[in-house]
């Protein structure tokens, strides 16, 4: 009865449904389109960005390597030995033409003054010991045999070198070499006592010294006593120092 009564109403209802469905589908399609466009743009941008980031990272690394190599090459072209100090990696090497002759273990390192840099070449002009080293004296007329006998009884060598010294460089820069107790020479407790005393002595020296502000820029390097003495023993009169990663 009701069906018969409202055929137009029924028809319009169906038409409305179809239109709604069509509209919904258009909306869904547009939504899908927007989403797909956005995701595609993001993907593209992301791919571009990651590639760019990778390139920039590689470029930065290569730039650093170039600076380091250029600085080292400037020293290596000269045949004289030079010191290569890597502040961040705590490495100290005596090198000739890119080839390491001796390596030293840095126990502690501290930088004072100056602005950060990646690679610089310093020129050492004076090694200034903080302790006085006395050389054995020969008596005229004693003869070579006596000299040899004295030399073997009281041998001259790295052990007779100062353990604390400043390597003063051109431009008021300096490497301050300081020594801690050597691992080979003492047991752990004695080593701790001696090392603490030496660090305290260095601190007092720095605080009360009149010359504390002499250096515009300095790097304090703590080595084992044996290494500090061996380094002093090995050094030529004047030499270049390659300083890396002084941040």
């Amino acid at each position, binding site marked *: 009865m009701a069906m018969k009564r409202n055929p137009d109403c029924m*028809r319009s209802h*169906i*038409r409305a*449904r*179809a239109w709604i*469905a*069509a509209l919904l*589908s258009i909306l869904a*399609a547009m939504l*899908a389109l927007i989403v*797909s*466009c956005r995701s*595609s*743009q993001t993907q*593209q*941008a992301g*791919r*571009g*960005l990651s590639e*760019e980031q990778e*390139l920039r990272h*590689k*470029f930065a690394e*290569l730039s650093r390597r*170039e600076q380091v*190599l*250029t600085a*080292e*090459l400037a020293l*290596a072209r000269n045949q*004289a*030995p030079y010191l290569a100090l890597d502040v961040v990696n705590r490495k100290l090497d005596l090198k*000739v*033409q*890119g*080839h390491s*002759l*001796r390596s030293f273990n840095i126990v502690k390192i501290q930088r004072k003054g100056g602005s950060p840099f990646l690679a610089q070449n310093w020129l050492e002009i004076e090694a200034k010991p903080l302790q006085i080293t006395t*050389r*054995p*004296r*020969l008596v*005229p*007329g*004693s*003869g*070579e045999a006596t*000299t*040899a006998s004295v*030399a073997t009884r009281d*041998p*001259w*060598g*790295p052990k*007779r070198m100062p353990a604390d010294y400043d390597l003063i460089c051109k431009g008021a820069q300096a490497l301050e070499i300081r020594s801690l107790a050597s691992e080979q020479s003492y047991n752990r407790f004695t080593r701790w006592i001696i090392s603490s005393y030496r660090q305290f002595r260095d601190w007092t020296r720095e605080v009360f010294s009149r010359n504390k502000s002499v250096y515009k820029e300095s790097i304090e390097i703590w080595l084992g006593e044996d290494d500090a003495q061996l380094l002093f*023993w*090995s050094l*030529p*009169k004047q*030499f270049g120092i390659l300083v890396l990663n002084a941040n």
Partner: protein
Amino acid sequence: MALGKLARAILSLSLCLGSCVLLQSCSKSPVPAQGDPQKGGATAAPRGDVNALRSQTRTLENKVQKLEQALAHQYPGGPVILVDTSRSQITLQLGMRIIVQGTCSTGNGMELADAAGKRSWTFDTPRGFFRVVSKVANPVWLRPDWSFIEEGEPIPKDPSKRAMANVLGDYAIAFGDGFFLHGTLYTRLLGANVTHGCIRVDDNTLKKLYMAAQPGTPIWIY
């Protein structure tokens, strides 16, 4: 009738979806392929930068490679003499390859002053870089003043009285400033720092050094 309307609705829906897919595919087509910098679109500017960066990176890579090669080639490939004074060891190398290694003696570090105190000598072996200046077989030592003072002898005015044969071994290799690599009569003292600055070497090592060294051969003392 109802079925026809439904069909129309389905048709419109499918048309919409079709157009959507078409539009989507159209929107994707202008995006350039990765690594193709010539094509435009929204990523054109950054891709241009990336391209420039890539080319700069390549140039820098080549430069770094050249620098690394240059550094590696600094160390001589020919004979070099290394003297480790802390271990009293002398090494002859051909490039990085060790040819011969022996024990040596270097400076005793002593100081000597003449009686008047006007002149003094320090018997150190110098550190650093040197070159072989000359080499001689059966060398004759011309005693310097300090040798006479050390022995308590008067310094002769006649230079011929300074000559002393058979004390420097079979060979002597000069490396400047009066310093020599030479042999010794005191072989038991090899390994100790007992010299007046010269480097004493055993006969066997000295012969090999003499054969390999030429004027200009690098010597590093450290």
